[in-house]
């Protein structure tokens, strides 16, 4: 689609089944590196299922199985020899509801690095500072890093969660599952601003119920409907002259 952008993630006829039910019905989608892909669609369209499949969090749900392929840098992430722990360090996830772990702000941020074996105190402190700065939270918390993450406001907690993802040194892809659904406009703006800066370094996939948010920050947009991907293209095209009538109806607010 965009010849100048390298393909980071490629899904080929990818299907997810929850028991007998087919939640994703053969998604074929190339996701370019260093761009923001917005994924829009009504609830139940399979957006979140698709996102969770990309770092294999769906594995945790009972009776889930998949068909087809997802390639990360050309490697099949569902291949038995692919290490799922490594995958999750390369492909980070920000959830819809901010979940600060019941530990200090500092410990929240270094959760990933500690798992990867970073022990050096100075190095950890550097990671905390860079990650919190990149998530636009540093100025608000730099004097109280030992305070529990639970005492932050919802908007701050979500930025803490973003910093926690960014702290992983192996990180290449950031998945965001409606990260601003519970946030006020100012916190939302801060997250969106962070994302537009972060795409220089990472590949970003943003699932959102807010079509305006996709229009604001996404370079490309994919429209999902009932487990199918209806259309994928540059954001301006999806929101102005989409090929499919259903896409047009959705982005103009006629259903959904």
């Amino acid at each position, binding site marked *: 689609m965009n010849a100048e952008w390298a393909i980071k993630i490629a899904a080929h006829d990818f299907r997810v089944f929850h028991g007998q039910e087919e939640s994703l019905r053969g998604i074929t989608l190339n996701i370019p590196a260093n761009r923001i892909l917005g994924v829009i669609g009504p609830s139940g369209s399979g957006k979140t299922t698709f996102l969770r499949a990309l770092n294999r969090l769906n594995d945790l749900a009972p009776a889930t199985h998949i068909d087809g392929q997802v390639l990360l840098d050309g490697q099949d992430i569902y291949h038995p020899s692919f290490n799922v*722990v490594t995958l*999750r360090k390369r492909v980070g996830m920000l*959830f819809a*509801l901010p979940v600060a772990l*019941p530990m200090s702000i500092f410990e929240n941020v270094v*959760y990933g690095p500690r*798992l990867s074996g970073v022990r050096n105190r100075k190095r950890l402190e550097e990671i905390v500072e860079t990650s919190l700065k990149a998530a636009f939270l540093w100025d608000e918390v730099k004097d109280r890093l030992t*305070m529990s993450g639970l005492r932050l406001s919802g908007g701050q907690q979500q930025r803490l969660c973003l910093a926690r*993802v960014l702290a992983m040194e192996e990180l290449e892809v950031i998945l965001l599952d409606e990260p601003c659904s519970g946030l006020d406009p100012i916190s939302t703006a801060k997250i969106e601003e962070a994302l537009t800066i972060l795409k220089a370094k990472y590949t970003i996939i943003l699932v959102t119920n807010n079509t305006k948010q996709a229009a604001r920050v996404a370079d490309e947009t994919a429209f999902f409907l009932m487990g199918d991907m209806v259309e994928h293209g540059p954001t301006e095209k999806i929101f102005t002259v989409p090929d499919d009538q259903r896409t047009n109806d959705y982005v103009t607010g006629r259903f959904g």
Partner: protein
Amino acid sequence: MRIPPKYTQALAVTVLGAATVFTVVVLVFIIVFVLSKGLPGINGEFLFSAPKDMGRAGGIFPTLVGTVLLPLMAIAIALPLGVGTAVYLTEYTRETRLTQVLRFGTDCLAGIPSILFGLFGFIFFVVMLKMGWCLLSGGLTLAIMVLPTIIRTSEEAIRAVPNSYREVSFSLGATRWETVLKVVLPNALPGIVTGVMLGIGRSIGETAAVIFTAGSALRMPASAFDSVRTMSVHFYILAREGISNEKAYATAAVLIISVLLVNLAAYSMMHRFIARRSR
């Protein structure tokens, strides 16, 4: 005929209130009774000297040591086994017929009279394994006795840890074991401690199973293969055989106070732990 709600309400308050008052009064009466009879007999010499003449005179120091060592050994054995089982059942297995059977089995075990555990310990550890009446036989028996309680309370505590914590941990590249260690167990700790406290309480208060397996020697135990007597057993023997009522009450008073202290210490430690993680 229908009683007006005004009266049923008044009746409910009276009956429920009376039940509460009755419970508290009985409890307070027992404690005050034991303390008033026992406290005068407690002094430094009573606490820290050996009993003389089967306990008619002297102190209770060896039984104090036994009361510390025996539950400690029981918990040291039961805690890793119990928490390990609970973690395995909740985190590493899906809910199947087998886990349901296991859970039902532990519930049944928790309700078995302690004398049966004592009998089992006597036949298996003391006689079959030729361990004799000793600290180790008693500790193992008490461990088996409190194991179901520890498993069930730990399991409930682990289940109560929000699933979102686990998801976050996995999504940051943690293995299941790392997730258990860093997220699940710390958050389940208060519940696990409650289970351990129940277990300690049961083992401190146990008499029948202890006499069967640890014996009732009044000497100071020198190793895990020596027989010990706990304060509960001492109290039972002093009172049952009419050796000395005065010493029996003093022992009971020490027992009540030490259980109280152990509980206070555990809960204040737990409180500090929780506060540190959410402040």
